[in-house]
């Protein structure tokens, strides 16, 4: 019985191959977008985790030298013998086979849990690691290292990119150093140990949270990607839902026949569930593979993006990780289950003798529409509360989700209202029929139109954010890179000579003095600048006193970047402690995009008073003739790489940001295409029930060609209305991304710019997608044999 039942079910797909292809494609696309994004995410995360674990950063405090990069072995032993539970790390870089490899040596005996060898995928034997000095290397450097060292090299993807992990003794040999780089501090320490300042005054303790900053930034990027992945999946689900709904409607007759011939209902449902599970496996598998391809195609950009933006290293190689592989299949199953459960439920409830003809499966009653409207109101209210009052990145994203969902649910009611108005004002019976018939199509097309709405809104929101970001950022670069040339001296002595040489030859010299320090309870860079025309003219502030630069020049004030201001809750006229006993009012807050670290700027004179040992080795200069200045500097004895043209830096920086958004742009286009596909499948679904709806109009004098044209027009109008609603939704989305999510994730707020032309283009693309999707169904309708139209009047349907 099972074989016969399955063969009957399967015969439907065999006869309707296009439907089968649509179902599989929809499910596969949904899975692909989701799992592609997940693949990128989990790959990137795994890389950070590896890096963070090897470094011991993020989770543990560390002791680092106050100056230099060496801690004497004796200092480590002295700390241990004073009771300090610390674990040593030796780090350095070596050149291997034309590339650089980072050498990390750890002591597994003293390393706290979660650091040291804990990143390795295969546990090393102590005899191997300690005794024989086996080296565990990331695939990117393993081969080159093998040729360079005498120890055995084992490839382990758990190690951070370009890094090799080994026993501290082996690392010392390879790097030819006996000193240590830093010490990881155990979270739990014994009673009665000595104070750090007595045992090792040359070391400073670095808080655990500092390493986590990179994590916070990259988390936001991943969260962004995940949100896109989920959105794409939802759009894909609309397709699957549509196709499965169509298939079930078309098989109503078969279901009746099968039951009349004695297939029990439970068995039938089980067989259909089995069939659906089969589809989920096949389509999910294809989707995961497609996701892998998408991820592999986008990953170099993601890697470049993250590395450029945050200095986070991410491996360019993609691994098929079981976690996203399985979640991909899981989500395909979940999606199929969601899409099929309604249809299965209807079959279970359908009386055996119900009409065998297909019926409109999603004709929404007024009650359903009200229910949708009510849910929409609830979702939108939730969104408002979360976005206005919530704190934290996840809450902001939850608010965003509620907003999008609420807007999607509100769509059918809004379209219905708009079409009702059009129907009222329409002149002539033909137009009235057109509008009322269009209105009748809204419930059936609502899923696809919701998908289009979400895709378009996401598109508008993200493109607004990206373009605002770019505009602001280019402005910012113009400010920051105002000088014409940058000079990098070899040392302070050369710098002093260069400065003397340049004095008479340039209009302005700006030495760059800076020190890494702690300000307002966070790590920060303190800059000393020679305030001149360049700063006064080019450095704008988000907020400032009237004469901010004059105050800074006089040594009476400090200006800080937005990151520090937001993190420490400081603003103009608040006071900042620059050094013990040195408290200065904040004269201005400047935008500092893409930089995770706090910055404070004081005058050169004050800086040199606080840090008399620091001499500038970098200068920015303003010159009338760049090439002449370059030539003079070369003659003076500087190498070409020491003279940097600001335009090059600017281009490089902009390039980094451009790449950042290649990924989101690619996902946008994919999402919009998927939404178009959803419209196509919905129209195909509706085509079957359209014939009886259109037959009376045909009988009363509309030609089939007319019907086809009107069908196309109908899709275009519905899409256009949806796009009109998508624009405000997209703008709200952008505002939330810029003013809420960005502040939560990055610590600065981006000014929002509006790009009407872009939105018009996007709306046009959305309508075009809908028109393309409607073209074929409309053509099919225009070619419906008159006999089929006549049948409507002659038989049961």
């Amino acid at each position, binding site marked *: 019985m099972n074989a016969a039942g399955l063969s009957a079910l399967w015969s439907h797909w065999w006869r309707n191959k296009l439907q089968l292809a649509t179902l599989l494609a929809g499910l596969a696309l949904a899975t692909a977008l989701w799992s592609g994004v997940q693949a990128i995410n989990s790959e990137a995360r795994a890389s950070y985790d590896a890096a963070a674990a090897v470094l011991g950063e993020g989770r543990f405090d560390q002791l680092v030298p106050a100056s230099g990069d060496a801690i004497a*072995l*004796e200092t*480590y*032993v002295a700390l*241990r*013998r*004073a*009771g300090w*539970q610390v674990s040593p790390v030796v780090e350095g870089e070596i050149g291997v086979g034309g590339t650089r490899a980072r050498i990390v040596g750890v*002591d*597994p*005996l*003293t*390393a*706290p*849990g979660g*650091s*040291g*060898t*804990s990143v*390795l995928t*295969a*546990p*090393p*034997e*102590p*005899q191997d*690691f*300690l*005794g024989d000095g086996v080296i565990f290397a990331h695939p990117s450097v393993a081969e080159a290292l093998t040729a360079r060292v005498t120890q055995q090299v084992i490839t382990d993807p758990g190690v951070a990119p370009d890094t090799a992990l080994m*026993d*501290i*003794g082996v690392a*010392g040999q390879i790097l030819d150093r*006996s000193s240590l780089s830093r010490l990881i501090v155990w979270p*739990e*320490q*014994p*009673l*009665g*140990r000595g104070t750090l300042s007595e045992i090792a005054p040359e070391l400073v303790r670095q808080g655990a949270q500092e390493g986590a900053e990179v994590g916070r930034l990259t988390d936001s990027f991943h969260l962004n990607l995940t949100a896109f992945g989920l959105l794409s999946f939802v759009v894909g689900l609309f397709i699957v839902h549509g196709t499965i709904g169509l298939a079930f409607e078309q098989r109503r007759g078969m279901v009746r026949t099968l039951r009349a011939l004695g297939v029990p209902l439970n068995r039938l449902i089980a067989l259909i569930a089995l069939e659906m599970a089969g589809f989920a496996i096949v389509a999910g598998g294809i989707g995961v593979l497609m996701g892998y391809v998408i991820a592999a195609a986008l990953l170099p950009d993601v890697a470049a993006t993250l590395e450029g933006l945050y200095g986070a290293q991410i491996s360019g190689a993609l691994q098929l990780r079981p976690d996203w592989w399985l979640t991909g299949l899981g989500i395909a199953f979940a999606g199929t289950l969601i899409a099929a459960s309604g249809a299965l439920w209807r079959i279970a409830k359908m009386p055996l003798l119900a009409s065998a003809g297909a019926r409109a499966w999603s004709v929404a009653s007024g009650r359903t529409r009200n229910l949708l409207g009510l849910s929409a109101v609830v979702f939108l209210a939730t969104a408002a509360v979360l976005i206005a009052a919530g704190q934290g990145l996840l809450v902001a994203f939850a608010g965003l989700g509620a907003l999008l969902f609420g807007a999607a649910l509100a769509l059918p009611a809004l379209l219905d209202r708009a079409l009702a108005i059009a129907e009222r004002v329409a002149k002539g019976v033909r137009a009235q029929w057109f509008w009322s018939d269009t209105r009748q199509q809204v419930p059936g097309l609502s899923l696809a139109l919701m998908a289009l709405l979400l895709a378009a809104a996401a598109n508008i929101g993200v493109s607004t954010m990206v373009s605002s970001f770019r505009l602001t950022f280019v402005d910012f670069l113009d400010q920051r890179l105002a000088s014409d040339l940058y000079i990098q001296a070899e040392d302070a002595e050369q710098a002093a000579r260069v400065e003397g040489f340049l004095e008479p030859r340039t209009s302005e010299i700006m030495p760059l003095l800076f020190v890494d320090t702690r300000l307002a309870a966070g790590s920060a860079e303190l800059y000393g600048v020679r305030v001149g025309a360049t700063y006064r003219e080019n450095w704008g502030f988000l907020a400032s006193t009237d004469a901010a630069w004059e105050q800074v020049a006089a040594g009476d004030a400090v200006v800080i970047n937005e990151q520090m201001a937001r993190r420490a809750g400081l603003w103009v006229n608040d006071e900042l402690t620059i050094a013990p006993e040195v408290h200065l009012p904040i004269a201005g807050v400047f935008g500092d995009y893409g930089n995770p670290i706090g910055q404070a700027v004081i005058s050169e004179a004050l800086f040199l008073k606080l840090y008399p040992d620091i001499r500038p080795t970098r200068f920015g200069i303003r010159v009338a003739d760049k090439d002449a200045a370059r030539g003079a500097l070369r003659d003076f004895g500087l190498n070409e790489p020491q003279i940097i043209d600001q335009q090059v830096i600017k281009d490089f920086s902009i390039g980094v940001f451009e790449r950042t958004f290649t990924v989101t742009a690619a996902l946008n286009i994919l999402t919009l295409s998927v939404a178009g596909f959803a419209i196509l499948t919905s129209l195909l679904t509706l085509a079957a029930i359209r014939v009886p709806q259109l037959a009376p109009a045909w009988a009363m004098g509309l030609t089939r060609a007319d019907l086809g044209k009107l069908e196309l027009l109908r899709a275009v109008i519905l899409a256009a209305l949806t796009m009109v609603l998508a624009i405000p939704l997209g703008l709200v989305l952008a505002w939330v991304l810029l003013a809420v999510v960005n502040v939560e994730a990055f610590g600065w707020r981006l000014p929002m710019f509006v790009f009407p032309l872009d939105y018009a283009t996007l709306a046009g693309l959305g309508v075009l997608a809908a028109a393309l999707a409607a073209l074929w169904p409309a053509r099919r309708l225009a070619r419906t044999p008159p006999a089929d139209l006549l049948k409507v009047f002659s038989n049961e349907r």
Partner: protein
Amino acid sequence: MSVKVFILALLLPVAALAQGFAGLGTDADGFTVPERGFEFQFPRDHGAHPDFRIEWWYLTANLEAEDGTPYGLQWTLFRSALAPEEAEGWESPQIWFAHAAVTTPEAHHVAERIARGGIGQAGVTAAPFDAWIDDWQMAGPNFEDMQLTATGTDFAYDMALLAQGPLIFQGDEGFSVKSEQGQASYYYSQPFFAIKGTLTLPEGEVAVTGEAWLDREWSSQPLADNQTGWDWFSLSFDDGTKMMGFRLRQTDGAHFTAGTWITPEGQTTPFENGVFKAEPLKVSDVDGRAIPTQWRVTVPQKGVDVTVNALNPNAWMDVNVPYWEGPVTVTGSHQGQGYLEMTGYE
């Protein structure tokens, strides 16, 4: 892989003793093997023997506060070698680890330290005697007069040790047989320490006095293949006599036992296999494990038939290679106190 697993694997030779993993038991891998008739030389042999695979300095003490509250104290330094040699710097194959504990009737405080030889973080020198790891130390001008310190996250102690009697050589003049197949170790003890000092506990500092027992043992082939763990007793009776006895449990349910009878003057009588008998009377649930915390110990030829009771049944040493170690009281034919160590119950 967790660090814990790494360390566990590292300590396999000792884990073999404690956990019945006996794969390394018979093969000495280039390490020196104990031989009968070895002549001990002091102070040299108080120091480390890097050509042997494992070695320990194992001190336990029964203490009493002024108010009569009994306490137990443990300070143990282990050496475990990856290779039979010593080297300078990080290349040293000598791994050191240590356990410290204070047992009260209500609580059991434990700390553990691990270090590598060769860099000065841990080691033992014979004269002047100094055994240390991190800030833990047992040191003094000689082996008879030492200061003992250890710290943990919730406890610390600082004690003075003064020997009141001679060294005791276990087994056949310090050659201690551990199985019928002939596995053996060098084993001597100083059971006559008077100990006095201060315990730092969460509830405050406590001044204590008492007696301590220090075991020195080194070997390269700890257990026979069929041995799964041991129960080790060091008992001090009120009449001044002392008795050491251990029972090695075998997979076939039989036991290999040995022991030493020690008079107050330090005269010793070794027990052949089977003379010393110990049978569990009561099993306690210690953190999910069934641990015998009350024993009947008998040595008919010495008229010993006593019940040994744990002061605190929860004296579980939750370290990388866990075991039970704690103070006991003795009642029956003889009265007294002592220490009990039980391994291989994980």
